[in-house]
């Protein structure tokens, strides 16, 4: 991959929650490059740290959470080195987020148009009132909503429309990086497809990059180019969508994929044995070894390294040796 093509470079990100029971290591040492025009999926079970990572990148982690180490480079800017005010401006202008359940975050008593304008006005773009209004309408166009929605209140809209309004607010300033955290988790399949297609077309038009966070592997298969699999706060495998779905290397990825319903195997239910570990007390060695059907002697002693091959495919598993993948 071309070095200049990197939209976001995350290096060794660590996010901890300091709780009464001890330090919860929600994200431990995540590194990846996100390329311009790329759609990357970030998948894993609830509690694996994927949403925490997104909030960490946005610098929106609340107490008692804290980004304890790491860098996130947007071009020549390290997000973690920005002042509070600079970061506030970067949000929306350079990195946008569509949070989980965003549709419930609209203010019920303010017209849609004004909620979009609020975000634009806050970024001091030097726009006149008329220009702000026009930009708000364009934002609605960009998510394929009719302009009459501008004058409506949130309760007059369906769930899918509200979700698209939230996307319009997040993306009105055309950020280069868009983080979408389960943007369709409460929507039915048709509305889900409509929202994802809208986000996809918007991404293509603005040449931005998208990180799609979610546990629905089906949605990932349909939408992204590359998939990063996260387990207990670490990336365990990264590959193109084709590699992940046709030739997964990590046993966890293999189980995630085999637990999905397909058309071929009616009535066959495969679930992943055991439950995700507590992030307070991670298992020794490889974090996945207690649930791994292929665990070997070395797995509970030594932590595998996330190896990378020349094409950018990465996996952290002792099955593939210390010298990298075959």
């Amino acid at each position: 991959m071309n070095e200049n093509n990197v939209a976001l470079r995350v290096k060794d990100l660590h996010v901890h929650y300091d709780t009464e029971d001890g330090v919860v290591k929600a994200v431990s040492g995540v590194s990846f490059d996100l390329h311009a025009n790329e759609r990357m999926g970030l998948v894993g079970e609830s509690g694996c740290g994927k949403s925490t990572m997104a909030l960490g990148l946005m610098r929106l982690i609340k107490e008692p959470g804290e980004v304890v180490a790491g860098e996130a480079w947007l071009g020549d800017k390290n997000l973690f080195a920005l002042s509070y005010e600079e970061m506030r401006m970067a949000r929306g202008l350079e990195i946008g987020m569509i949070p989980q359940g965003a549709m419930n975050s609209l203010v019920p008593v303010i017209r849609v148009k004004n909620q979009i304008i609020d975000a634009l006005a806050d970024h001091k773009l030097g726009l006149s009132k008329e220009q702000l209004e026009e930009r708000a309408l364009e934002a609605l166009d960009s998510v394929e909503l009719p302009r009459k929605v501008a004058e409506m209140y949130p309760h007059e809209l369906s769930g899918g429309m509200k979700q698209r309004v939230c996307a319009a607010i997040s993306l009105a300033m055309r950020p280069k990086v868009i983080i979408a955290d389960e943007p369709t988790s409460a929507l039915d399949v048709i509305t889900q497809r409509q929202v994802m297609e809208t986000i996809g077309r918007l991404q293509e038009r603005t040449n931005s990059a998208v990180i799609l966070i979610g546990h629905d592997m089906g949605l990932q298969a349909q939408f992204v180019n590359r998939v990063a699999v996260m387990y207990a706060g670490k990336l365990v495998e990264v590959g193109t969508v084709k590699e992940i779905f046709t030739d997964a290397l990590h046993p966890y990825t293999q189980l995630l994929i085999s637990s999905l319903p397909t058309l071929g195997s009616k009535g066959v239910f495969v679930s992943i044995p055991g439950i995700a570990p507590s992030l307070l007390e991670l298992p020794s060695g490889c974090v996945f070894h207690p649930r791994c059907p292929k665990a070997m002697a070395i797995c509970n002693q030594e932590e595998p390294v996330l190896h990378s091959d020349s094409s950018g495919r990465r996996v952290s598993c002792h099955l593939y040796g210390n010298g990298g993948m075959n």
Partner: protein
Amino acid sequence: MTHLLELRNVTKVFGEGAKATVAVDEVSLYLESDKPSIIAVAGESGSGKTTMGMTVLGFLRPTRGQILYRGIDVDKMNADQSITYRREVQAVFQDPFASYNPFYKVDRLFEKPIAKFKLASSQGEARELIEEALNKVGLRPREMLGRFPHQLSGGQRQRLVVARAILLNPQLLIADEPVSMVDASLRAGILEKIRQLHDELGISVLYITHDLTTAYHISDGIMVLYQGSVVEAGDVDKVIKSPVHPYTQLLVDSIPWADLTLKWGKQPIIEPTEEDLARLAAAGTACCKYAPRCPQAMPRCWESRPPLFHADSGRVAACFLYESGTTLEKDELGGLFSALNNGSS
């Protein structure tokens, strides 16, 4: 013969006059008592599937029509009949986070119904019942009891709700999106338990969902609702693998299969125009409700409402494209499902 459950022309209207919303529109269905089955009720948000489940559970009274449990109108039950119905018809809801009172230990979820229905004569006996139910859903009592809901994962909480339902030895389980808020990796486990309960204990299940992939895996028959009416129904294999109604085709085309060879979105999503919506509203019942969004709408679709036609054996569709097939009377939908059940077992 009396049916386990029968919906006779059930209609539920919310609101009045111009603002009235018909959530369930003359739905009829029966489940036979001697042939337990799993029937999926599928549709998008607002299709009326949850309202239908709520009327069966007796939480909502139908505006018109009747719901009969073992031949008795749910609305006219005496105290004893009502208690039996409350015990034998159990529910599992969507949100495993909202079905618990956070102030009480999860034990209460089991102790309350045991006391209410007088299922045990001593503490020890109650404990045995609880442990047995937990074992059936694959949870270790030692790890669950005495804990608060927030100490458990979503999957564990949802399995506890299923355990509570089986504790009561139900005949019918209304499962309304039981896995939609649970991690994909845990869904299989919960659905497998429900399927097992059906196979081993002979429990019938109404599986209400918008997720056609899980419906396909767990159920024998499926009815697809659109704005409160059945648009396609029958053998789940046929309906999911080769849908015939244009709406079901769009639904199936929008499933995000985790399979790179099955790309979604071959069919465009048509947003109805204002004129068409006005035309639909003006036509009332003399019009197919799906016409404004249908890529294959014909003039006659705007003139009368299509009945259920047999598109092939074991499957019906409310669409004039299949009018060469014989019609199925609405109240015979149960018969269609029970014939499927005969074939498969």
